[in-house]
């Protein structure tokens, strides 16, 4: 019995962690390329989920098509935001960049609230509801699809960054902007592209979360803040770190939800990632895979 409970927690953690990984990847892509901290990542996720839901329920478009349209929409949203808001701020102070993404998150949240209200909207069933037996425990099929989807997307991203010309150009931009400029890479285009990719990846996370939870509301935007412990644990500029960190934080969250919550009466699940964040910052500020920048002040 106890073992099943533990396994159940681990699987839940793994699934949520996968989605954390996905959103964290989006976060890291932007940070690596443009060194901007995007605190509106959770809103990208929320907007993606709402758009997909809207297409499916109001316009009766099948899931797969709405999924693709949502991705296209997110890409355009990312491009527009980069062009209009972030590009004029290149090179400006960190406080401005952080604050502008906070302002952006207010705007996106408000727009979603104006359009869809604050109530939880049920997400139509996409995956068959019958659970699959893995060993002793039943696992819902949505979870398996989510894990599969995340794995596929992460693999695609890795291949893209490793082999495609654009991907290599993006990595070059991340490593040294001046050199890449002199090699004929359009740094501006790479910045725009990284916002687009990040928005797409987050939208996928949002849609998966919607299908797993069976309903979406404004609380989806908190995922953006949940991602911060993940990227700190993994290292702010490492995609591999984001993936590993996501799974670790997801599992940690569910374990503390299962084992600590009964003693403190709830809430430990929400706060555990942030306690982890503080500890990591104190003992290993560049995370598991982050690049160490030595500067003593």
């Amino acid at each position, binding site marked *: 019995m106890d073992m099943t409970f533990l396994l159940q927690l681990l699987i839940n953690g793994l699934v949520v962690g996968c989605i954390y990984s996905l959103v964290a990847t989006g976060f890291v892509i932007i940070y690596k390329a443009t060194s901007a*901290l995007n605190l509106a990542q959770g809103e990208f996720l929320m907007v993606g989920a709402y758009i997909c839901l809207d297409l499916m329920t109001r316009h009766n478009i099948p899931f797969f098509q709405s999924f693709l349209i949502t991705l296209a929409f997110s890409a355009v949203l990312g491009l527009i935001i980069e062009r209009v*808001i972030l590009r*004029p*701020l290149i090179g*400006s102070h*960190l*406080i*401005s960049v*952080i*604050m*502008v993404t*906070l*302002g*952006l*998150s*207010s*705007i*996106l*949240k*408000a*727009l979603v*609230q*104006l359009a869809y209200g604050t109530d939880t909207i049920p997400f139509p069933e996409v995956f068959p509801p019958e659970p699959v037996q893995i060993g002793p425990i039943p696992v819902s099929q949505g979870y398996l699809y989510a894990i599969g989807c995340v794995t596929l997307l992460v693999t695609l991203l890795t291949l893209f960054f490793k082999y495609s010309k654009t991907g290599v150009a993006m990595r070059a931009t991340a490593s040294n902007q001046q050199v890449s400029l002199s090699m004929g890479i359009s740094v501006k285009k790479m910045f725009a592209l990284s916002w687009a990719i990040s928005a797409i990846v987050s939208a996928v996370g949002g849609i998966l979360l919607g299908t797993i939870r069976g309903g979406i509301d404004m609380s989806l935007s908190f995922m953006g*803040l949940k991602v*911060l*412990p993940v990227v*700190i644990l993994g290292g*702010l500029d490492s995609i591999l770190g984001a993936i590993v960190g996501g799974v670790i934080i997801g599992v940690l969250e569910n374990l503390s939800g299962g084992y600590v919550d009964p003693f*403190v*009466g709830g*809430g*430990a699940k*929400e*706060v555990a990632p*942030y*306690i982890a*964040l*503080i500890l990591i*910052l*104190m003992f290993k*500020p560049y995370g598991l895979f982050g690049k160490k920048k030595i500067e003593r*002040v």
Partner: protein
Amino acid sequence: MRCGDFKTSYAADMTIFESNSARIMLGLFLCLLFTVPLYTPGYVLDIANRIGIAVIGAVGLNILTGFTGQISLGNAAFMAIGAFSSGYLGTRFGLPFFLCIPLAGLMTAFFGMFVGIPSLRIKGLYLAMATLAAHFIVEFLVVKWESVTGGVAGLSIPPPKLGSFAFDTDARLFFLIFVIAIMAVLFAKNLFRTKVGKAFIAIRDQAISAEVMGVNILKYKLLSFGISSFYVGVAGALVAYQAKIISPETFPITVAIDYLGMIIIGGLGSILGSIYGAVFITLLPELLRLSTSALAGPFPLLVAKLAAMKELVFGIFVVVFILFEPHGLAARWHRIRNYWKIYPF
């Protein structure tokens, strides 16, 4: 006619009032300010009180973020600590408010310095994240530590009393809040004429050069966290007196974002800017409410969407200010004033 900067001594450059007329104008303004409760209704006074509290908090945050360059997203948590420690001291030990408020400030200052310790190893966005994490941890503790904070139900705060005189109406609170706010602004204004304030600015501009020039970074960063948190804690204590009941929901993360918005819109690194920003951000929802109730006839849906509208307008203002007026209202005001000073030219 004055058409430039003709300062010939350090003292002249450092003076708060450029001329006697500025001094007289400010004096007149303060006299007018303290007659406000005589002829305004409670609703307006309530807003005025909130502005006064926001001024204290925004000046505090600006000392840390605008002048010392340390980003803090933990402002709401600091306010909560100030509010709950003042409330606890007042209700449990029956301390009078003139002890509660400074003690709450000190408590918050200690906590702020504790949070500030990592700022020596980490900076910039790492610090932003650490303070954000501190916010959520404090929120958790406030909910859980029921014996002190009253948990989810909250704590009800009796009005502050001086002998048999109770500050129990908005008009009476107005005097308490604004006297403290004026002291806070004056202290901050003078702080940046001293060595300590200049050290803060040096750390913001170039931490390494500051250290080379003999500024003890550890000491001054912590001092900045301490002073800033003291302000925010005092603001929190006043929020408690004004709201009369405080619970964990009184201080959500949006409060911290609102305060950052105040100093961004008002002007980073400007005391006057913090005041403008505090007034602006506090008035914003009220103006929206007025305009939506005026438009409620033709667009009845607007009233229900007020919260979202407020958030939308706030976000747009923050983004627009950062893009087009990064130095905030204070810089814009300076430009307008200088334009008129040398008008025909």
